[in-house]
């Protein structure tokens, strides 16, 4: 069995040629970090990627941003949305293409990204309600929180299938991360975190990916981690069209405190994510 010796870092090494950070993200990231760069430089870097540019403009004009005037040029988008946010979106809007090189037989890419996108929308909405955090950064964290799953499904398909069977056999008394932990010695959150570290993603993103199932264990960025932890469960509610918390993995009560939110917001956030999903999915999965 090839899994016996495998560690999250081994898996990341295995896929290094198959999945890479989007070029447009790397270019924009370099410019945002460079104090001598201008908005015009960033707009030019964005403009080099026609597919991303088209998606960025559609998104800037979507209900998600609700700008009063139409955003018709990249320069305008960079100015209105902000450079840090454009960097986040360069990652968000290109990541599905990046992972197309990691196919698997367990979940369709459409269903995988549906959950991720619902989590991203729920996280964004929770963040707006919680205030004092960056909705676009949380959106990106929501999109990326389960990327470790795609790696496990591609590299260790049999063990991954056994883990899902264990969840069903237990009538969901055993959750997915716990089943993975029992069969592999680690779960998808740890694999995702290893990739995020390898890619040198922002520390907040790394923490959200690593601890979305165990928010109490996050040593930093506790608020953002708590928001993604909650958003993950709300995304599952949105998917099965329920507002009963029992229909999704339990939310750690401490996460509500850490997020500064009341569980009463569940229904509004689930409904909002469902409502926004159709338009955003088209932009996100469009070519």
């Amino acid at each position, binding site marked *: 069995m090839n899994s016996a010796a495998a560690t999250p870092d081994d898996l990341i090494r295995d896929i290094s040629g198959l999945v890479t950070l989007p070029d447009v993200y790397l270019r924009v990231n370099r410019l945002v970090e460079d104090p001598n760069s201008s908005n015009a430089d960033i707009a030019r870097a964005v403009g080099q990627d026609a597919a991303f540019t088209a998606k960025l403009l559609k998104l800037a004009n979507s209900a998600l941003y609700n700008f009063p005037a139409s955003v018709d040029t990249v320069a305008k988008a960079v100015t209105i949305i902000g450079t840090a946010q454009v960097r986040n979106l360069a990652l968000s809007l290109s990541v599905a293409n990046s992972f197309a090189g990691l196919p698997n*037989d*367990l*979940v*369709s890419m459409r*269903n*995988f990204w*549906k*959950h991720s996108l619902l989590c991203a929308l729920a996280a964004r909405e929770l963040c707006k309600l919680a205030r004092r955090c960056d909705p676009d950064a949380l959106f990106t964290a929501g999109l990326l929180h389960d990327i470790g799953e795609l790696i496990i499904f591609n590299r260790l398909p049999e063990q991954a*299938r056994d883990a*899902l*069977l*264990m*969840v*069903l*056999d*237990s*009538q*969901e*008394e*055993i*959750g*997915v991360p*716990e089943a993975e932990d029992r069969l592999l010695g680690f779960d998808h959150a740890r694999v995702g975190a290893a990739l995020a570290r390898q890619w040198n993603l922002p520390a907040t993103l790394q923490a959200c990916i690593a601890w979305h199932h165990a928010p109490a264990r996050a040593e930093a960025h506790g608020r953002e981690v708590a928001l993604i932890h909650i958003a993950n469960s709300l995304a*599952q509610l949105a*998917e*099965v*069209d*329920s507002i009963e918390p029992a*229909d999704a*993995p*339990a939310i750690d009560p401490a996460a509500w405190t850490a997020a500064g939110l009341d569980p009463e917001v569940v229904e509004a956030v689930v409904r909002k994510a469902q409502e926004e999903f159709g338009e955003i999915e088209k932009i996100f999965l469009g070519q």
Partner: protein
Amino acid sequence: MMALVSGRTDLPPMPPPLPGFEHVRRSWNNQFQSYAARILPGEFYVTRQKEGVATTLGSCISACIRDRVTGIGGMNHFMLPATEVSDLASMKAVNLSDATRFGNYAMEHLINEIMRNGGRRQNLEVKLFGGGRIISGMTDVGLANITFVRDYLDIESLPVVAEDVGDIFPRMVMFFPATGVAKVKRLRSLHNNVILDEERRYIDSIKKQPVSGEVELF
């Protein structure tokens, strides 16, 4: 997160299974504080005890049937090998022939076993689950299964007291024959393919059986 217990010493003893059901895997369920049998596609389970019967359904159907007076009851899990019958009209036209014999078989096996263990036909009540369209674009096998089982129960004059069928979700069902309580949980699409594989294996296995003779019709 609660663990599936094994080797715990503080659990009540597992109730004895009825003859013929010894092979069905059962385990303790923390949420319901009860033992529960888990059945796979093609299987069924009948009990006179205070225990649950659980399964996960994609496009398959589970009928949960019990004697409302004595509490004897159980659950089956089946689907029709509908690939040879492409739409509902032809499905109805060939009713009681090849395409439906596995449905008849599953329903009659469950009902007969309940009656053999003391259930009375006039006391039987039914809850129906499953028949989801969990793959888009393909023939709606789930709907064919729903149509079959409704027709079957109609002909047999058995009352359906509750149902949750159709839609696009896989389901996890837990049924307690003693009380008639049934809990249904919709499952996220992450589980679709694992459930579909179980159902495909079942369909492949029944397709290999000869058209007549091997399956006993009642």
